[in-house]
């Protein structure tokens, strides 16, 4: 786990960026299911800066991972071949879309169908971005990561983190009550529960599977034994994140509960990401 802390910037990036992105899924659901007043929309748009900032903080953190951030512009050279380039490309597209969306929305010029369309595109980009973040870790030579479950868990993290965060945005904008009157409640509930399941199953099955792997340096069983307690912490956090969100959706101190869910999600995803780096196991010699 000590080694995993060396990946702190990456762990922060892969925690914050997908979770912030996931919040746009919640917002899209809200706009698709609820007719908000102009005043509410204005407030929601202002509060949407929160998930946007979460995403941007994640991206900034990722720069601290790089030895030469000045060369970062070159990372698109590998698009198509390098899963990392692909991730960054998709991530950048998402960020640009999200930024433009928020800016345009804040100018008050995004109405009706246009808003629904735009926010849906942003939400779709968010989902794709989360999947590509998982794909970036799938390498044939890292046996412990080379699994579609990595995509599944990253998607799960985006949803189980994004739903409470998005719900919090609605709550802080004083619009949640209205949203809960419609089908947002059920849609959000389904998404957050599915997200939690994807996160828990994807993460646990992948990590436990490492236990059967071995290379010339370490045995996967030792790695798994070392991280078991953290795995349990992460799972508990996901459950609590989903529970908090569900409570908020049920109207029980919605802002507080959504906030609680979001905090649990941050902790859970972050711990899960550290565990993920701690169970890196090459097919050969890689430290």
């Amino acid at each position, binding site marked *: *786990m*000590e*080694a995993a802390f060396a990946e702190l*910037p990456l762990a922060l990036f892969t925690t914050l960026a997908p979770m912030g992105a996931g919040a746009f899924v919640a917002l899209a659901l809200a706009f698709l299911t609820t007719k908000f007043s102009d005043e509410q929309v204005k407030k929601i748009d202002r509060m949407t800066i929160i998930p946007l900032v979460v995403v941007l903080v994640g991206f900034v953190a990722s720069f*601290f991972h790089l030895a030469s951030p000045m060369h970062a512009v070159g990372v698109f050279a590998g698009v198509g071949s390098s899963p990392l380039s692909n991730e960054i490309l998709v991530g950048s597209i998402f960020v640009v879309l999200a930024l433009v969306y928020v800016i345009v929305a804040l100018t008050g010029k995004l109405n009706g169908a246009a808003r629904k369309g735009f926010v849906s595109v942003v939400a779709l980009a968010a989902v794709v971005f989360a999947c590509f973040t998982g794909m970036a870790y799938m390498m044939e030579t890292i046996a412990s990561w080379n699994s579609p479950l990595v995509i599944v868990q990253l998607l799960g993290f985006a949803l189980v983190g994004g739903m409470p965060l998005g719900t919090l945005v609605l709550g802080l904008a004083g619009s949640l009550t209205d949203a809960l009157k419609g089908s947002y409640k059920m849609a959000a509930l389904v998404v957050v529960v599915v997200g939690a399941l994807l996160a828990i199953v994807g993460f646990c099955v992948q990590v436990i599977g490492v236990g059967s792997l071995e290379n010339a340096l370490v045995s996967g069983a030792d790695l798994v034994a070392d991280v078991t307690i953290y795995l349990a912490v992460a799972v508990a956090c996901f459950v609590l994140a989903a529970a908090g969100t569900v409570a908020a959706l049920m109207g029980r101190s919605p802002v507080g509960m959504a906030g609680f869910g979001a905090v649990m999600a941050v902790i859970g995803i972050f711990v899960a990401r550290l565990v993920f780096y701690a169970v890196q196991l090459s097919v050969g010699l890689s430290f």
Partner: protein
Amino acid sequence: MSDIMPSLSRRTFVKTTGALGALAAVGGSVAAADSLFGAGVPEAHAASEEKITWGHCAINCPGCCSLKFHVQDDEVVWVDTYTSKDAGFDDPQPRACLRGRSYRRWLASPDRINYPMKRVGKRGEGKYEQISWDEAIDLAATKLKEVIDQYGNEAVYVPYATGVSATTSRPFNRFLNLVGGYLNFYNSYSTAQISCITPYMYGSKQSGGSSFKAAEDAKLVLIFGSSPTETRQGGLTTHYDWVHLRERTGAKIYMIDYRMNDSIVGHSEQWLPINPGTDAALVAGIAHYLIEHDMVDLDFLHTYCVGYDEESMPEAYKGKNMSYYAYIMGEGYDKVEKTPEWAAKITGIPAERIESLAEEIGTTKPLYVNQGWGPQRRSNGEWTSWAIMALPCLVGQIGLPGTNNGTREDRTSPASVSMDAGKNPVKASIPCFLFTDAIDHGTEMTSKNAGVKGVDKLPVNIKYMINYAGNCLTNQHSEINKAHDILADESKCEFILGIDTVMCDSLKYSDVILPDLFRFEQTSQISTGSDTGYMITGTACTSPKFERKTAYEMATLMAEKFGVADEFTEGKTEEERIKEQYEKAREKSPKLPTWDEAVEMGVYIEEHDPVVSMAKFRKDPVGSALDTPSGKIEIFSEKLLQFTEGWELEADDTLPGMNTMPPIPVYLPEWYGVETTTDEYPLALSGFHYRGRIHSSWGFMPELKEVNPQEAWINPVDAEPRKIAQGDKVRVKNEFGEIELLAKVTPRVVPGTVAVSQGAWHDADMAGDRVDKGGSINTLTTQRPSPLSKGNPQHTNICEVVKA
């Protein structure tokens, strides 16, 4: 969380610790430009022309490998060696080892000594201040005059040192001989026991071993306690010769060692694990089998040897059951029959294995028996090495193609002549290992209790020492804590002049320190080799930096103060001497190139035929008789028996009931050995040579230490009950001290014995707990000498290991 995945924690070094790490690294690299220690003045290497010079490694290893310096702007940019891309396996190339390839770091080390210095703290503290050359030489010479006037030249000593091997490496001895001389030493820390015992058995003129190349003709090769690759690393020394032999010979090879050493990695079938210090018991068990199965070569033993059985005993000792046969068959000495079962209990080698090995020895010819210097560096080392030498005699495998006389492999080298050190007017000589005794209570040392030679007893204690390129005052001596106490007392040895390139532990006891130049920072020549001979002629790679001087210049400055400079130099510079010596060598060996050619080629290689030990004697035992008293091989040595009569011995020095040392190669249990461990110290502890150092040389270099960590090898059988895991920090301790180092938990060492490589730099708070964090085994070794040679028994130790 830090206990998780500790073995992988260094990954943090290059993996992400954030951009802050890079900033910190930049800020930390500002160095003082003109300190007491440090590298040459750094200059840009921008596109200036590259110069190439040759040089040789000059540290106590017969490799003395070639160094090819690439130099720009008077700074070495990298160090190559004599090599070529197309060299085949058989092409002789004295390629430098990993240490030779690291010389640039030592040359430019921040720890390099730049100026003369005088001590300002206590001895051993390492506190010094810069002084002028005038002041330094004045202090050293004035004190030398005082000591000679007050105590006589017997109070002056030049301790054993291994830092410089070259043809002009003893200038201080030459200088001292011009001012009345100095107390001599004999022995070395390398070979005290075997060098002492071999002449008793084989004499001194024909006793050399067969070369490794000769073993290509053998059918069975037995190596006792040697690691040719670790002890002599390099491309044309025994490292290469061993690898070459193994590939070229059809012989079966057995390496008898308590450790699966680096010379047999990849070839574990060659390892025959044995308890350390018990080789003589193994030989006795084999001898018993050979006798029982009528496999001894009686013709050989009766024609060429003395003392095997009654028939071949000297007249005066017949009928007393004092022969080797009587010892083996339980008829004499301890009256114990040396059956394979007896030997199995002691050696740890199963009786059946001893029998099958004996069967192979008895039936396989030629047999090449060889021993390293590990088995002899023990409390029973004289007898262990003697027993190993007796083994080939039992089966007549001496002096024939493919055989060896049981000593270490022969080495050949081109002719060379060293600087004449003059004649020492002082006759007294001590075993080098007893110099701390000679400082502490030299006047109590006699020929009967301390191996004093030349005089019956020492007239005076050592009062003045010139320690040139040596780390044997503490680090490579024994019982460092005791050595510290003796040396730190300024009333005992009153003055120590130290000369070196970096501040090793021994140098910290100097009163004045002079900054040395490497031999490749001056003209220097060396002649060496093993299967193949070679000579390296080197010139200065760079100009002298700071105020460093050559040892020859230093000794000349000392001579000036005594008014003997002209006698010292004879009007010659060191380079002129080297050239003159070389011309003398060319007179002996006209095929040598001219000096100019030698400088130009840097490396001169001379192919030599395989050397078969004692071939002349085998052919003509009368005409080419040995220079032993009998002219024969003495398996029984009357001379030894008589020499040790009246000696002051401890009870456990010899066999029970004897008041001399045994006159035949018996097994003597060690005082601190596998048979004499205690409840408090239940494990045996032995040293070995490590690839990252030659003795203590290079022991300070971070780049070498990083990939050659100081470790205690411990078998899982011993580690598990102590809850010690691979990589754990452990303490190894005994009655003499305590060291701290990492555990290497490995099946490559036998259960019951811990192995710690010798030469790590001692690093302890000598005013505090004295725990040696450097892990020098000599914190744990005894100053009690082996009984006959009075040599260093540094592999004979017992200890306990605990998790730190």
